[in-house]
């Protein structure tokens, strides 16, 4: 596995997350890559334990594309944008 750690722009786009994590944006998160989306989510939960309150229906967005939390492997590049996306409620 050609795994290495890199820096990702971690976004908490919804106030759900802001309220849970207390931050809107983290600039300097080190993340291994490639990584399964489930491992990426687990890593985020370790940094921000209150995110577990979201649980059901949460997905990630990597480079502004939705990624379900599961076995799907994500390849990250330096500076990539990773967002935590709780259930939508627009309209």
């Amino acid at each position, binding site marked *: 596995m050609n795994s290495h750690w890199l820096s990702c722009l971690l976004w908490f*786009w919804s106030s*759900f997350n802001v309220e849970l994590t207390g931050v809107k944006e983290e600039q300097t998160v080190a993340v291994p890559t490639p990584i399964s989306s489930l491992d990426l989510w687990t890593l985020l939960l370790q940094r921000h334990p209150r995110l577990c309150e979201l649980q059901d*229906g949460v997905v990630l967005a990597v480079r502004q594309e939705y990624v379900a939390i599961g076995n799907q492997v994500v390849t990250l590049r330096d500076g990539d944008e990773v*967002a935590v996306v709780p259930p939508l*409620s*627009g*309209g």
Partner: protein
Amino acid sequence: LAEKQNGPRDIFKLSCDWLSVQEVVDAVSSPSCGAISVFIGTTREDEADGKKVVGLEYEAYEPMAQSEFTKLCADIRARWPSVTHICVYHRLGWVKVGEASVVMAISSPHRHDSQQAIQNCISQLKANVPIWKKEVYNTQEASWKENAE
């Protein structure tokens, strides 16, 4: 330029201001279209556990909302090729009861296409465009919502 003006328009705006239905309708008007279908979503007077909703607070992941809207338009145009223009305005921030949170309009030469497309448009927007709302109650409390579908 003339070609660009006459070609199909996909217009998306996130706005903290009151939404003008006329502006959205004008954005999709075309002499080649006999039909414009419009959908307006408004903040409904509602109660939850005896608390009264006084308004909604909207928030979006803005750049991704724009890119999801672009995908949504491509999908609509694939399903209903006769759709001419698509315009969606969505409020952000505070929207009090009775005001519109979303106004969307779709034009087509004949009515069935714009009518089916507008239903699909609001369903896709609710399912895919990263926007969230928080219900704010008369008790000062608030709670984040989740679209049922």
